[in-house]
């Protein structure tokens, strides 16, 4: 089979070409007619054979007839028979030529197609190999990255636990100083101590954020869901931060929906943290004007919005605001100094609830509105 294939590599019509379909060519390596090279017919249909046998039968038939009738082969009969065979041969040739030509064309087309398929296959194989190699490389890089990412998260988690112990000690002792447990503090010392206390609180918050992020990224964050009346949750957040807003002289109000909203199944602690974060940011970045908080049902979702008349956001900030760290030309930078990781954590929490969080702003100085959308079911 291998050999035959190799031989047939010679193109049709070339010298040394062996037509596998012709029994004469194949077995005897004998080509009675040039067109036998092109013949596509199988053994029992061999035109050459038909011609030979039919001619022989004709000759034998007439010779026998002539012997039976006249006792010898007369010259007339001989001439008549051979003329018949030649005439027959002429018409036979003529009628079969067409057939063989058609077969030849078919054969040629088939070979061209096979050749094309072969080169195509080669190309496909080559491309497939390239793709497979590239995939392997990518897969390896991905695995490495995953390990690295996990190591990073575990490092942050561990480091944060380590950080929390000294932070607890600082918080504890400063609070005890402030309570006057060790000594009476002068008003100035008390003021400084309070600053230390709040700086430490901020540090604790950052560590908590880092810890939460690493938990989310390690897939260890779990939701403790319960049915919550969202207006009540927002109300309590507002009450907690109202003083801060009033200190800055801001108008601050929560527009409760006229009709009570449906209870939703959420992790109230985490959503509370999200809402607190949004309100806290609104207060921090608004110098004058108002902050309005709303909750309403839109289709099958509950939408919470926090609108302020503060600094507003540029287009770029709007995009990057929910990213933890962004890598700019100057390396790793926060989007706005002091905003920290709160919004990144908020986004992750909302996404864990299959919700959406986004910001809208008409531009710098024109205030901004933050939205949170949570599915009812």
């Amino acid at each position, binding site marked *: 089979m291998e050999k035959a294939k190799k031989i047939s590599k010679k193109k049709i019509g070339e010298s040394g070409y062996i037509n596998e379909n012709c029994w004469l060519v194949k077995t005897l390596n004998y080509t009675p007619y040039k067109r036998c090279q092109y013949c596509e017919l199988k053994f029992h249909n061999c035109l050459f054979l038909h011609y030979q046998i039919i001619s022989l039968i004709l000759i034998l038939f007439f010779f026998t007839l002539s012997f039976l009738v006249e006792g010898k082969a007369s010259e007339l009969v001989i001439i008549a028979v051979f003329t018949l065979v030649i005439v027959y041969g002429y018409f036979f040739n003529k009628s079969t030529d067409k057939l063989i030509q058609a077969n030849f064309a078919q054969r040629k087309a088939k070979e061209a197609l096979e050749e094309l398929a072969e080169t195509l296959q080669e190309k496909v194989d080559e491309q497939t190999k390239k793709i497979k190699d590239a995939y392997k490389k990518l897969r390896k890089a991905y695995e490495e990255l995953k390990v690295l990412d996990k190591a990073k998260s575990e490092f942050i988690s561990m480091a944060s*636990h380590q950080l929390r112990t000294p932070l607890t000690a600082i918080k*504890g002792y400063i609070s*005890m100083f402030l309570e006057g447990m060790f000594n009476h503090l002068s008003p100035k010392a008390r003021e400084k101590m309070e600053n230390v206390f709040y700086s430490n609180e901020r540090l604790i918050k950052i560590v908590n954020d880092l810890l939460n992020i690493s938990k989310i990224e390690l897939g260890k964050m779990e939701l403790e869901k319960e049915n919550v009346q969202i207006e009540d949750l927002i109300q309590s957040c507002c009450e907690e931060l109202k003083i801060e807003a009033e200190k800055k002289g801001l108008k601050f109000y929560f527009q409760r929906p006229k009709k009570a909203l449906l209870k939703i199944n959420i992790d109230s602690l985490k959503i509370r943290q999200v809402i607190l974060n949004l309100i806290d940011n609104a207060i921090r970045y608004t110098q004058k004007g108002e902050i309005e908080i709303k909750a309403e049902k839109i289709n099958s979702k509950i939408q919470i919005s926090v609108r302020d008349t503060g600094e507003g956001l540029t287009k770029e900030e709007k995009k990057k605001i929910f990213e933890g760290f962004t890598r700019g030309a100057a390396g790793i930078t926060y989007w706005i100094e002091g905003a920290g990781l709160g919004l990144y954590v908020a986004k992750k929490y909302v996404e864990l609830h299959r919700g959406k969080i986004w910001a809208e702003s008409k531009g710098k100085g024109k205030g901004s509105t933050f939205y949170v959308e949570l599915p009812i079911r």
Partner: protein
Amino acid sequence: MAKILIIEDKKILAEMYQDKFSQAGFEVSLAFNSEEGIRLAKKEKPDLILLDILLPKENGIQFLKRLKMVPEISKIPVVAFSNYDEPKTKKEAARLGVKDYLIKTEFTPAELVEKIKEYLPSSRI
């Protein structure tokens, strides 16, 4: 006067809480590891145990398991108090019957005292 046992391996924190609880009128005993905790619990029979989770050798979870096996002290209420707040550990602790799982950085010592009072019978405060 209520008796409280604090199991905490970080000396600076242990002493800080001891100061605060003593000032608030508690009788405080300190243990720096699980082993010592069991021994002191048997000896002092405290009204409540304040338990850190990340401890050397045996951690807080193992302490809770051991506590449950000693009948004379197994009924003492325990409040877990740690900076380690992995959900798995929290669940495990809840399963072993802790009254609460508090995160250290969220409380000043004074706030902790108030919180702990919630878990003590009123006659002991």
